[in-house]
């Protein structure tokens, strides 16, 4: 009998405990970030420092623009409204620590370049730190969900995810019937001449998803410089080169001309068939990577995606989620 | 103090420089090592100074094998004076002489050491140079500083390597006078390797001629410096001349 009373009493006490805990935790949210850290955040969050341009985009979509008090350097002219936010460093890797602390943020959002040491420093000042990745395509939806939780705006998040998954499914469905032999060989270039990306580069899954074969997939390292003979021998069907964030149309034109006239590439299928494309970073990272996927898919399989206009989809995205009416060029040639 | 080298052998890169070499030195006496270039005079001096280790044979101090004596204690008995040389980092004359006190203290310079250095400065008439850098001195002055440093070791045996080479007549004489005083006043034994046979003949009690490998001739100057020995050793016909200050060895011509 005594045993029974005790157990009932215990249960009762336990319930009280759970409820009181729940009450206290009503203003707290818990997020598991990309580094598998459980971050407990007091809401509402008022002051955010975001050290990743791609993540600022997501914050803005979710209505958090007012709350971002500082950012790191970003030269994308895409989001003109974000240009006025003060700068506290070049990237997550080298934040100006005292300047960050001086702004007394509630939350710091950074990418994986943030060092463990700096994360510890910020946390020692009572600032919550969330590290996320927008270059990992599998992570993107989780990032949006996490930010939606922080900004308490799940509605917009669902809308954004739906928009992206619609086109992802479209690509997947149309490419389902494409055999491996039908996939074009792709040579992808970034920065200097003959610097490409291997299976460890973030572009590799993108090429694969869009129905191409990355000729550098099996090479060592992540972004090695390869021999011109290697590219010549592989004879790619498509060549893609990344434009810098602040490249003008003329810069992109020059880039393409240089590729078309480069000796080692002259005889490749890509140059012969004029399948050489310059594409901006802006459509390859974060939420705009869906636009990049659409462009890549159309580069690789122009007939299958003849009816798709990635440029227009991008404009729609900018209008709908950023209320932006001015658009720059993301690819060259733009047909 | 008495030094004795017993059948020592020294090899340089597997070839013996000298072999079966025996030598005895007594306090208050000066011995000159003479012989042609490259015969091993400097090497012998270094073997006796505990700089090189003989490959076989031993050196004894008062009958005690030098190998059984601690390096620091040995440094208090053997004062080595090298041929003059300049170094990258120069120190003052005072500090250079103070280095001779190395075997006596580890870090802190004692009052006693300063007094000894001061006495030596005065004795060799170096007071005015005390603050000068050694590398800015003339060859003669540098030689005196090197001797002064060995004096600071308070050794019972001085070993000098070519103390008069590169010196003018004036300095040659000054240095040889200092060396003579070492033997007399300090009652020390002096061994010096020297090229100048006339200086050797005039200032030493004994001559040790390394004629060729394994052939050593020792004795008083008159006994060693004979026309016959000189021709055999140096390949030069000489004439021995008597002067008021002793014998003179005059080279005449190369022997055919």
């Amino acid at each position, binding site marked *: 009998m005594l045993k029974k009373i005790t157990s009932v009493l215990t249960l009762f006490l336990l319930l009280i405990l759970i409820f009181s805990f729940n009450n206290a935790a009503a203003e707290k949210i818990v997020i598991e970030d990309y580094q598998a850290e459980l971050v407990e955040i007091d809401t509402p969050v008022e002051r955010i420092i975001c050290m990743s341009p791609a993540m600022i985009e997501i914050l803005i979509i979710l209505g958090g623009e007012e709350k971002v008090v500082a950012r790191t350097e970003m030269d994308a002219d895409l989001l003109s409204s974000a240009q006025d936010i003060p700068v506290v460093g070049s990237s997550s890797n080298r934040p100006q620590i005292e300047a960050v602390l001086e702004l*007394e943020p509630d939350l710091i959002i950074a990418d994986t370049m943030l060092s463990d040491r700096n994360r510890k*420093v910020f946390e020692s000042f009572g600032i919550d730190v969330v590290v996320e990745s927008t270059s990992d395509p599998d992570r993107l939806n989780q990032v949006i969900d996490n930010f939606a939780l922080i900004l308490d705006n799940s509605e917009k998040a669902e809308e954004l995810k739906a928009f992206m998954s619609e086109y992802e499914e479209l690509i997947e469905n149309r490419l389902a019937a494409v055999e491996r032999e039908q996939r074009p060989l792709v040579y992808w270039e970034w920065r200097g001449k003959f610097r490409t990306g291997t299976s460890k580069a973030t572009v590799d899954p993108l090429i694969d998803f869009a129905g191409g074969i990355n000729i550098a997939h099996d090479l060592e390292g992540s972004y090695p410089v390869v021999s011109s003979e290697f590219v010549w021998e592989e004879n790619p069907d498509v060549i893609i080169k990344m434009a810098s964030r602040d490249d003008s149309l003329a810069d992109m034109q020059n880039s393409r001309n240089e590729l078309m006239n480069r000796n080692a590439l002259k005889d490749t299928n890509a140059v012969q068939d004029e399948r050489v494309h310059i594409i901006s970073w802006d459509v390859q990272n974060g939420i705009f990577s869906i636009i990049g996927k659409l462009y890549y898919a159309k580069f690789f399989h122009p007939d299958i995606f003849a009816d798709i206009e990635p440029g227009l989809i991008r404009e729609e995205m900018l209008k709908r989620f950023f209320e932006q009416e001015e658009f720059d060029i993301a690819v060259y040639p733009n047909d | 103090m008495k030094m004795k080298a017993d059948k020592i052998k020294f090899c340089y890169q597997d070839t013996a420089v000298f072999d079966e070499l025996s030598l005895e030195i007594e306090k208050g006496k000066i011995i000159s090592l003479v012989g042609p270039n490259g015969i091993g005079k400097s090497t012998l001096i270094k073997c006796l100074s505990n700089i090189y280790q003989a490959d076989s044979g031993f050196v004894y101090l008062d009958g005690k094998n030098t190998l059984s004596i601690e*390096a620091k204690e040995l440094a208090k008995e053997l004062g*080595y004076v*090298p041929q003059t040389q300049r170094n990258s*980092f120069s120190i*003052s004359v005072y500090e250079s002489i103070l280095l001779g006190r190395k075997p006596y203290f580890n870090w802190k310079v004692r009052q006693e050491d300063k007094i000894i250095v001061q006495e030596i400065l*005065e004795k060799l008439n170096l*007071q005015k140079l005390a603050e000068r850098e050694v590398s800015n001195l003339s060859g003669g002055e540098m030689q005196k500083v090197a001797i002064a440093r060995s004096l600071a070791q308070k050794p019972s045996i001085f070993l000098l390597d070519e103390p008069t080479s590169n010196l003018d007549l004036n300095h040659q004489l000054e240095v040889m006078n200092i060396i003579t005083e070492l033997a007399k006043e300090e009652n020390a034994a002096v061994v010096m390797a020297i090229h100048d046979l006339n200086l050797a003949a005039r200032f030493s009690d004994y001559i040790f001629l390394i004629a060729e490998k394994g052939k050593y001739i020792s004795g008083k100057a008159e006994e060693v410096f004979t026309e016959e020995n000189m021709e055999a050793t140096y390949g030069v016909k000489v004439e021995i001349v008597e002067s008021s200050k002793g014998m003179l060895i005059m080279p005449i011509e190369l022997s055919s």
Partner: protein
Amino acid sequence: MQKIGSENYYDRAFKKRMIFLLFLIFLLVIVTIFSITLGVASITFGDTIKVLFGELFGIGSQDYSSFSRGIVMNLRLPRIALAIITGLALGSSGSIMQSILKNPLASPYTLGIASGSAFGAAAAIVLGDVIFKTIFTAYSSWVIILGAFSFGLLTILIINLIVSLKEGSSAMLILAGVALGYLFSAGVSFLRYVTDHEQLRELAIWLMGGFYQAEWRDIFILTPILILSLILLLKISWDVNALSAGEEVAQNLGIDIRKLRRIGTVTAAFLTSSVVAFTGIIGFVGLVAPHICRMIIGNDNRFLTISSGLAGALFLLGADTAARLIISPAELPVGIITSFFGAPFFIYMLIKKRRSYWS
């Protein structure tokens, strides 16, 4: 009496050296105070001093904010301490290397030891991640120091080997050091190619040295290493003095030259490697600091070693403070500042004393 006049020479020199030492310490304190009160975060001079007294000595009114305490105690102070420790280490090991190798151009940087250590540290990170996956995080600092020291030691062994060759001249030694330096820098660059994104982040410090990552943990590890090494270097300093009269004289004075050279160079390499493991390569400190001290107090290693260390600390702390302030709120790499001063000084030395340096 003349006796007294000359007798005073040693005491006078001694006094001059002690005054120089005290002067360096005084300057270092001034620069430290200056450096600790300057920064992007707006904390008043008064608050900074209050934090220092309150946290370090537990005295004075403790009415400062936790923000001020955090900035001063967790950001600025460890960074300043690391700069001072690194300067002490590089300056004193530079001076002892010069004296032992009898080469005025010797320093951790010119002999390639810093590059060797940086490569060792970087290799420890990259390989350590693969080999010691499980224990790596807990002991990472020590693994990195071990890696740095192994290659620092390897470099000094090669250098010693070159010295022992009869024909090894002063110029040859430095050229060999420069070549080794290039070799190891290439090694670090190679590691950059074969590692992935995550490790690259950790390698950044060895590609461009600096103190911005300073933590108290680094200070706790380095301080005992520094103190023990300095004691050892001071202990052998009188013996090292004897080397200035030539190796043969030193031997005759009862010194085991090989042992002395071994102890001196290995200690200097260890000291260099330890700091490089935390700061990466910062050039010219170990070269400039000893020479300025040699000009002022002469070549007595009993004073020179510690003075060079202090001068190195002063130089590095000044350079790092400048690096923090020149384009504030952004920062310059401290190596840019030290090279701006160090490289012209190096060239000046070559021209001024070229005969004795390249013989």
